[in-house]
């Protein structure tokens, strides 16, 4: 897809998404889209790790939980304001990511995956069992939506569904903008080099460990942001939102949508949330369907749904050794 076509597609998609509440005020549709946005934000973080750097983390939603519970405690127990909390919860998840990353990243490939899996399980048991702080398995109730803000005399509340929809949609858009900035930068270029050949990146002067910890922290911070918005939407933090199955779902979303593509997480999350709703399935069937879908995708579209739209034009014929003048 040429860059102009991609730009047009992006503008159309953004216009449709923002004007949707005006044309189709069906709360059910908006509810599904809010959920898709809430899945997309951690997925972008995971895409930077998995898609661009080649780090498959199986504990990603554990960091979403860190953001969610730190946020819940700050909002409910400490009674901080929402925006300060949003910032602090994101930073806390990022910091947790840097710490856990510094440990997990000493391992490579499948060993790394196992250690991140262990972190995810550990985080879940903390959320589930530390009753005094996280309120345990029953969940952490009473998490507020952001307070109304006033801009130029106009009062904007976050209670009604369309308003919250605009809020999370904008948050998701900003996260996508950040993803694009990161990927197009020298930093992103280095991440992609690490994924392709770590030894070469090192031989070109990259301190691979530091870059990996940095992207792990960034991914975890985005997960934390998504986690806090998620519990603010549901008004309750439940450990089950941040368990192993959710972490695997995040990987599914990224791989299904197209790991290492800018729009991949959006396509993945949309299909992941909307398809089961459309098919009226229960959540139990979701993994079955997506397992099958994943097999199909890996067989026929190894670069995910986004890869179907993308083809790299190669202007010269394949190499031969006969290019001597």
């Amino acid at each position: 897809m040429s860059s102009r076509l991609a730009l047009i597609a992006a503008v159309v998609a953004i216009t449709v998404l923002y004007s949707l509440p005006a044309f189709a005020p069906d709360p059910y549709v908006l509810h599904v889209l809010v959920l898709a946005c809430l899945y997309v934000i951690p997925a972008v973080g995971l895409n930077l790790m998995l898609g661009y750097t080649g780090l498959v983390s199986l504990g990603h939603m554990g960091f979403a939980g860190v953001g969610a519970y730190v946020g819940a405690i700050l909002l409910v127990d400490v009674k901080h304001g929402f925006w300060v909390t949003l910032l602090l919860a994101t930073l806390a998840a990022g910091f947790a990511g840097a710490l856990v990353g510094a440990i997990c990243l000493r391992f490579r490939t499948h060993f790394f995956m196992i250690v991140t899996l262990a972190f995810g399980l550990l985080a879940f048991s903390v959320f589930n069992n530390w009753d005094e702080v996280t309120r345990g398995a029953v969940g952490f109730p009473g998490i507020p939506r952001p307070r109304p803000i006033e801009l130029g005399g106009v009062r904007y509340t976050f209670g009604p569904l369309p308003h919250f929809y605009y809020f999370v949609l904008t948050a998701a858009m900003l996260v996508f903008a950040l993803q694009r900035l990161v990927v197009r930068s020298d930093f992103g270029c280095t991440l992609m080099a690490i994924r392709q050949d770590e030894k070469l990146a090192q031989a070109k002067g990259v301190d691979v460990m530091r870059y990996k910890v940095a992207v792990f922290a960034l991914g975890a911070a985005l997960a934390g942001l998504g986690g806090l918005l998620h519990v603010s939407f549901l008004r309750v933090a439940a450990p089950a939102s941040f368990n192993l199955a959710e972490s695997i779902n995040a990987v599914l979303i990224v791989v299904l949508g197209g790991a290492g593509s800018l729009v991949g997480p959006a396509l993945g999350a949309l299909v992941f949330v909307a398809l089961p709703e459309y098919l009226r399935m229960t959540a139990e069937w979701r993994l079955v369907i997506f397992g099958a879908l994943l097999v199909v995708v890996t067989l026929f579209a190894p670069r995910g749904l986004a890869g179907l739209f993308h083809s790299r034009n190669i202007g010269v014929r394949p190499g031969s050794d006969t290019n001597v003048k």
Partner: protein
Amino acid sequence: MMKLLAVEGVRKRYGGVIALADVSFAIEQSGIYGLIGPNGAGKTTLFDVIAGNTAADNGRVIIDDREMTGALPYRLVRQGVARSFQECRVLSEFTCLENLLFAAQPKTLGHGIAQIFTRRDAHRRAALESARHLLDLVNLTAYADAPASVLSFGQRRLLEIVTTFIMRPRVLLLDEPAAGVNPALLETLDRALRAMIAERTGVFLIVEHNMTFIFALAHEIIVMHQGVVLERGTPEQIQASPRVVEAYLG
């Protein structure tokens, strides 16, 4: 005199195998140096020790008069060491031009993070000219925007060598650049290496098994045998040395 590259008493043993028994030499003048020797002489191990990919058991590595023993590869790069690999490594998903621009860009994490937001690309534009020049030097201009995966093995070697050169190294380590390269590309390689050393001072240390190639190219040859330096001298001296002939050239 300043030591551009020196190793002193370097030893390395893998289990019961002695890869490097005791290697010492110093290079004080810029130029092309050939490192030859039979298989198992320890040439690649020595490269790995100098480039920081392997830690030596004993001995010192000195780059530009500064001790760099045991430093990690990225630190050595910042001290001016660049290397190519025997197995040839390029970023196959990047285009040839992107491979060069990546090699040229500053690699510190601070730069990387700052550049996300400042989006300054003056360094990219500055490197672009040099990248195009180097692609031209190895006849890869037609492939500038093609992913490196479409290149033939020989072309990948050439690309890898120019990506090391664009890093402006003072010590350039090339591990068997001529291996797997067909005779036509060999000429391109020879011409490119001569042009590169003429452009900038530095030490090119080249491990090579193709004797015709390296004897024609190198200013000086270092011969390794069973983990030690057997002989050092100009190509003519080496070819005449009875010890080298007995141990290696036959």
